[in-house]
């Protein structure tokens, strides 16, 4: 069972709901709202068991996002930042877009899972718990 989860998502309302679902399972969640926060707090991800990442995120002001299309590719850049820092960290792409719209290189990573936000929160939480073994 995961003890600590980082949720990287700009949608506060969604995070508010899913946090409640995690709390019911005694899982602690830390919410990171923006791409810049990820860059700043990348070291703190070390203590987490799993990262939930929305692949569609508003762009950040850091220069690492300069070449990425705003909103469209920001999440992919964030993934790379996380992966470069933590090669084996479990990253769950929790998003509204279809899996085939996501960069196939990300989806092929053994330490990446995909979940759709349109699922019920309880189902999302249940799946994440299963991913963690």
């Amino acid at each position, binding site marked *: 069972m995961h003890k600590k989860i980082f949720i990287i998502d700009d*949608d506060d*309302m*969604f995070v508010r*709901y899913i946090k409640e679902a995690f709390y019911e399972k005694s899982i602690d969640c830390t919410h990171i709202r923006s791409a810049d926060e990820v860059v700043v707090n990348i070291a703190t991800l070390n203590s987490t068991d799993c990262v939930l990442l929305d692949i*569609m995120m508003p762009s950040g002001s850091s220069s690492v996002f300069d070449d990425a299309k705003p909103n*469209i590719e920001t999440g992919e850049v964030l993934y790379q930042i996380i992966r470069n820092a933590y090669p084996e960290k479990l990253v769950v792409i929790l998003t*509204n877009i279809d899996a085939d719209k996501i960069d196939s290189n990300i989806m092929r990573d053994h330490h990446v899972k995909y979940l759709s*936000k*349109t699922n019920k929160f309880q189902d999302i939480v249940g799946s994440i718990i299963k991913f963690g073994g």
Partner: protein
Amino acid sequence: MKISNIDSIVFYRVNDKYVSMITQKESDKKSYPISIFSGKDIFNESDFIDFSFYEIIKGKKWRKFENNEFIILTPIVAPIAVMSRDLFLTRRKERWPIDILVHSENIIKSKKFDLLYNILIKITSRRNLNECVSLIAQQYYFDAYSFWKYNKLTSTFTCEVSSRDVNCQAGYICIINKPTNQLSEFINSGKCIDTRELSKDCHNYNYFSDMQTINRIKIPLGEAINDKGEVGVLNLFSKYSDFSLSDTEYETIVNIINLVLREEQKDEIALLQELENVFINKYSFGNLQEILFKIVVAVCDKIKFETCAIFLEDEKQEKLQLVALKDSQTNGKPNKNYQCYLRNDVSKTVNTWIKGMAHFSYDLKSTPSKLPVESTVSDEKNCLGLPIKSDDRSVGVLRVKNKINNNGNVVHFSPSDSRILEWVCSSIAHFYKIETRYKELDDKVKKTGADYHLLQDFIKAFTHEVRTPVSIFCTAPEMIKHRLNGYNIADNDKIFKYLTDIHVLGERLLYISKIYTIDQLWESYKCEKLSLQTKLIYPIYNLSKYYYLETKGIEFICNPNDFANVYIFGDINLLGIALNALIDNAAKYSQDVSRKYFILSRNKSHHNVVEIVISNYGFPIQKNERNLIFDKNYRGSLAKMRKISGSGIGLYLSKEIIVKHKGELILASAENPVSFVIRLPLAHEG
């Protein structure tokens, strides 16, 4: 039963039997079915049912023509030469066996020449041109014949058949390439048939000097004479003067020869199909070069030329480049640095390219036979250059040299050769056109590819925006139920919040989905009298104020009472979308600024219009962009720089909607605050 003055006997097939009918003389109109035989051998006595007829035919020599419908027996008589002229002319009038049948009152109703035509068609269709012309000459009692073809492409006459020309009989074709000669005059005369006394003809026919009359028949071969294509000229010679064909006879002859030539053209068709398999079926975009190599090799191998070259113009249409070559040293790809032809080069190939006309040159010195008097030599080399035309413009040249026969001798081009080469040129032009079009399309696709990715990005963003609220919209009720299980129903705060969220998000979902289907919006346009305060201002203000405050920390300032007793005409959904878009924009651009609020207010001024003002204190709109902000998909540079999300559709859409309602949307102030004003005509009470 007496039978007299019988020329030929026709047996007409009825099921598996043959019935013969003959009449007496022309004055005797009665017909008598004479005999029936059912065997295979007409001369076998046991096959005849009526032996009296058999008595007539046995013992004589007959010439038999046979097919599935008729058997014609024609008595073999003495040669024409020993016949008296009067008898001959008499016989000529009565020569057709069908005359007998025409006079009969029985089952065969066909007219004379139709039936003859059918008979001769079936007889001659199995024979080649030489035999066909020979047969025709016999049937019409002519003494000698020749058949010429005129090739308009090369401006030459070739003699293909001749009863007396030694060269033709030996298999060599004679050529006439004079600008004026008897044949040219006849072709250009407009006549289809011409009969004249040979003694009056100014031209000496070496091989036909004993003839008195010549009947010339013009035979269009395939296409019309005045267009491209071939024309045939059949010369029928008679020892007798004033010996001419009738119109119907001429028609029959033309049809028969065309039928036979159609049979001969089957070889040509078979060759075309072979060539088709070599390269037509193998072409695909991008492999034109490879196909051109195959073409030159195939032209040499299958049409039997010594050399074949293809020239195509460059992109600037300034040069003619050698792109494919087959000769003794090259097998498709030119391996030498051949120089290009330029437009002002003096060359027949360039001439062909620029003028789009075939050039033809001939060297008859290679022919082993003695040339007839009519033949001439034109140019030195046995070359033929044909233009490759695409959209009526010459884009290249196909050049061949030295047609070779099976014995390895250089022989003359036949009309069939030039026809096939024209077809090859047409195919090359077709490929060239496809290749050019594909290159243009390829460039466009590359550009479109970029636009396609843009569309894909838009779809990704749109999907994300739509599904985010949907997921909460779907799950929130579950959360409500879950909450209600553990809470007293009187605890209204959280329940109210969830319900408010659902409502607001539902509105957002509706708004987002609608702005991307604007055409459907116009179709469902419904105009009604609306209270501005209760139908538009209150719903938007009451729901959005909490949303913006809670989610973005932005205050939505508005006094709905300012809009009391104001009525307009319009579609409630469209106006809601327009207002929402402007409010959403105002909120969006109020996020990262010091004054985190925006204002919805009313200018109280005009009698006939209402002015709704939406203001925010976000970053200003640049001067050079103030005329552009209402353009579709336009996004301000500062917005892009600050990475504020948006698609550039909001303002455009709002303006479209307001204009449709006979109103205006203007940028009243570009900074401090940024203010947009909606002007709508009032609907007065009563």
